[in-house]
């Protein structure tokens, strides 16, 4: 079990695994059983520059763009309902191949069609994000979200970022009421 972080906390992945080359960012959640539509939560990743804005729209990795242009960030596909054990969605990052202009990779989760389905993260339980060393499947860090997010329809779970020559992970847990489009726009993606 890796370092368990609180909101805002961070850990050096490089120190935790000195030969670290690639990671899997796993996300999981449970939805509260209610009558009505299924929940469809989508993970995405945004590769940001020093100004914390998207490098280009191609670096917005989501269900319709599963790989970054150089393949260093790769979404492993969609879990439509979140049922079952283990991570619900996974995004792999080949850290040694991430280009230098990428200062950080923000990992987000959004609820599809939240407004018309009247769904929010208030109905999501046991949400977490964790970072796994792909070389040996060892969990390096984990953040269990505990916020009561009754209006948020999207959330930045965490961030993998460069700092003084190391790769680090920060637990964020920041919510948005504007869904995937709102998060994407906030980081400079042209949703147009």
């Amino acid at each position, binding site marked *: 079990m890796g370092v368990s972080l609180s909101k805002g906390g961070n850990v050096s992945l490089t120190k935790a695994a000195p030969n670290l080359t690639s990671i899997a960012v796993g996300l999981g959640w449970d939805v509260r059983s209610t009558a009505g539509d299924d929940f469809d939560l989508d993970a995405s990743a945004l590769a940001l520059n020093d100004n914390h804005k998207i490098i280009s*729209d191609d670096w917005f990795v989501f269900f*319709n*763009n599963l790989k970054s242009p150089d393949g260093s960030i790769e979404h492993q596909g969609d879990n439509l309902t979140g049922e079952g054990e283990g991570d619900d969605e996974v995004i792999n990052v080949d850290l040694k191949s991430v280009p230098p202009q990428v200062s950080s990779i923000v990992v987000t989760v959004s609820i599809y069609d939240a407004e018309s389905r009247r769904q929010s993260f208030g109905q999501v339980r046991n949400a977490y994000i964790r970072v796994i060393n792909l070389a040996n499947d060892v969990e390096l860090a984990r953040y269990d979200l505990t916020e009561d997010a009754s209006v948020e329809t999207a959330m930045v779970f965490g961030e993998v970022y460069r700092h003084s020559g190391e790769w680090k992970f920060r637990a964020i847990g920041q919510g948005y009421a504007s869904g995937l489009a709102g998060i*994407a726009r906030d980081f400079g*993606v042209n*949703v*147009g």
Partner: protein
Amino acid sequence: MTLTRVQSGVGTLTFEAVVTAAAGDLRLGCAYQLRSGRASTVQHHAGRRYAPAAETRRPVIVANRQQYERIAVDLRQVTELERFVVYGFAGNGQPLQWGGTLIATTFGGDRIEMPIDLAPAPAVAVLASVYNIRGELVIRTEMDLIGTTVREACRGYGFDRISWVDDTTPIDRTHARDQRRVRSRR
């Protein structure tokens, strides 16, 4: 025009026929084909509003009418969509004068305006085609008067997986691989 992967994957893509009464009783329909092989049409005029047929909870395509006839595509399900065409036809069976504009609008508000510049004719016109090319939707203006029936127009654009009750009404199948087509020899 090619939409980006973001434009092709976020929100809803709508097609709206902005026309005046002078054009006639112009109605919209959409012939579609999914990656699963399922193919059919939607037409608000015929009460066949959802694609796939009877999929009211999460339709990929919805035909409706507000001020104008409209086709709306749920881009969250774009990965399931292979291609579709938007066609126009006369709801009252009378020859159309055509005119007006077909407007495609992305979630972010970008618009593609396609003048419906066609000669008066008692025909079905394919107004636009959309293909999903590796996650990017390619929208092409067609403005093609093709056939006098919806069936002819669909077949003209290669929708040969659709079987028909009559010239307007497709037979909706639940699983394309369960289809059995018997071709009679002449």
